């Protein structure tokens, strides 16, 4: 639509916007205008809503069907974003000892063997490897926070 055509062709941005305005104003779900080889077909909101709504959740939710797999798992929105989840219950430590620097920080690159944190469980300090390579986009827990199994710890951009 960048190159607006003369004489009101179907790619005319002004006309396009005008139709959209009218659709909004009059709550139209779909407009399909054809003339010989020309066609303007615009759908609004409708198709999305028209899709089956998710089943209302049973109450209480009951045992969940979705089984969050432990680390690493792709974030729902972006297949390149991977969330590293806690493989155990315990206390999260971001650094090898209180005086040291963090294993990783946002912006760091990690590879599969990189230790990204320690989780203490039963007095044992378990070094947790990234098991994936990429760039650290977010650290999702605080130092010394208690974490349960499956708790999201880090967000990794695997293209990074």
């Amino acid at each position, binding site marked *: 639509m960048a190159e607006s055509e003369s004489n009101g062709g179907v790619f005319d941005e002004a006309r396009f916007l005008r139709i959209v305005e009218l659709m909004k104003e009059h709550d139209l779900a779909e407009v399909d205008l054809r003339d010989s080889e020309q066609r303007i077909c615009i759908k609004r909101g409708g198709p999305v809503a028209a899709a089956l709504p998710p089943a209302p959740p*049973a109450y*209480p*939710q*009951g045992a969940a*069907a979705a089984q969050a*797999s432990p680390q690493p798992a792709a974030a729902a929105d972006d297949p390149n974003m991977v969330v590293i989840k806690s493989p155990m*219950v315990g206390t999260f430590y971001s650094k090898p000892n209180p005086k040291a620097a963090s294993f990783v920080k946002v912006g760091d690159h990690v590879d599969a063997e990189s230790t990204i944190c320690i989780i203490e*469980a039963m007095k044992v300090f378990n070094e947790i490897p990234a098991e994936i390579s990429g760039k650290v986009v977010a650290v999702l827990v605080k130092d010394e926070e208690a974490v349960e199994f499956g708790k999201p710890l880090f967000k990794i951009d695997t293209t990074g």
Partner: protein
Amino acid sequence: MYNRILIANRGEIALRIIRACREMGIETVAVFSEADRGSAYLDLADEAICIGPAKSAQSYLKIDQIISAAEVGNVEAIHPGYGFLAENSHFNEVCRSCKIDFIGPTPEAMDLLGDKNRAREIARKAKVPVVPGSGGLISDEAEALKVAHEIGFPVLIKATAGGGGKGMRVAANDLVLQTAIQQAQTEAQAAFGNAGVYLEKYVERPRHVEVQVLADLHGNVVHLWERECSTQRRHQKLIEESPAPNLPQETREAICQAAVRLIKSVNYTNAGTVEFIVDQENNFYFIEVNARIQVEHPVTEMVTGIDLIRSQIAIAAGEPLPFTQSNITQRGAAIECRINAEDSERNFQPCPGQIKKMFTPGGMGVRFESHVHQGYVVPPHYDSMIGKLIVHQPTRREAIACMLRALDELRIEGIQTTAPFHKKVLQHSEFVEGWVDTSFVERVFLNK
């Protein structure tokens, strides 16, 4: 008393323990696998911690994860429920080493009674009857005949290395015994590479009767009378009740006293169940001790009015029993039906899946112990019991009538349950008259 405990279990028993804790003013930490995430009963706990994926071996059986959750959750004690780690003495020891009270017996008592042969020996010493036997290997026919005449026919010939019925033979007289001994030895040799066999009295049509015991840390031991659990399918209890029907009062008292003797002799503490078989002449023989709370504990609670879970917690916290033996009476009759997600028409195959619609029974004398509800998804990873329906009435006859109407009221759609099967059992004349032995269900209903 504790401020906060962790419940190392799931489902109905986890909910049962949460309820007891709430009544005692104790905070609870529930643990759950990913298959149980979002279960409604978890909302009733003060904290809920995910300890692993659906598989039990990676969650409910994973000692380090549970201990770690206990540390993170800052609890003073762990209630193991039944199943999973409830009778795991190693877990029990790990709790102790981590300075977390295990709500149950000591690891030592657990180990002592966990070995069946040692438990038999302990019973003998406590003058608790065990099934009479040769007490050692039988070398030849002459010895076998001598022993058989001592203990009385029929006798059971068992392979010392045996299991699963292999090398086992029943002999009802001298003639059969003479040939059976040789056959059993040959079969045992072939099956286990060990021809050693021994003799034991064969108990025909035994009844399963067990005694509930509570023992505090101060040497007080009481029994809470007996439960009859003979209605079984493949050694899985289906229906339990208290009192045991048609059990002479002197037998009832003798069994209960025997159970207390046994428990006292090993300094056992907390709740435990002493299991016996009772023959058709009301002779009883010790079988084993279950060193935990049992699925069927509510029938005892109903007739005695004593809350066993709260008692377990109070005992572990060091409180003395608040009652003596003479305070503990059986009032009325209680029956429990285990409601399993199983299709009794299809060889009791498990039926996991979503409960689409559900209507639970209620009213006087009805207790439904269950964590499930309309919309709940029964996960395929664990045992199929989804609830226990318990009734309490002045008489056994009334209890059966009440259970039948409660089973009628229980409506579960979406999955099959054992409720219809229970109705058939409860209406069978042998059950109604109270003459059920452990072969009843298979003999009558499964044409086996």
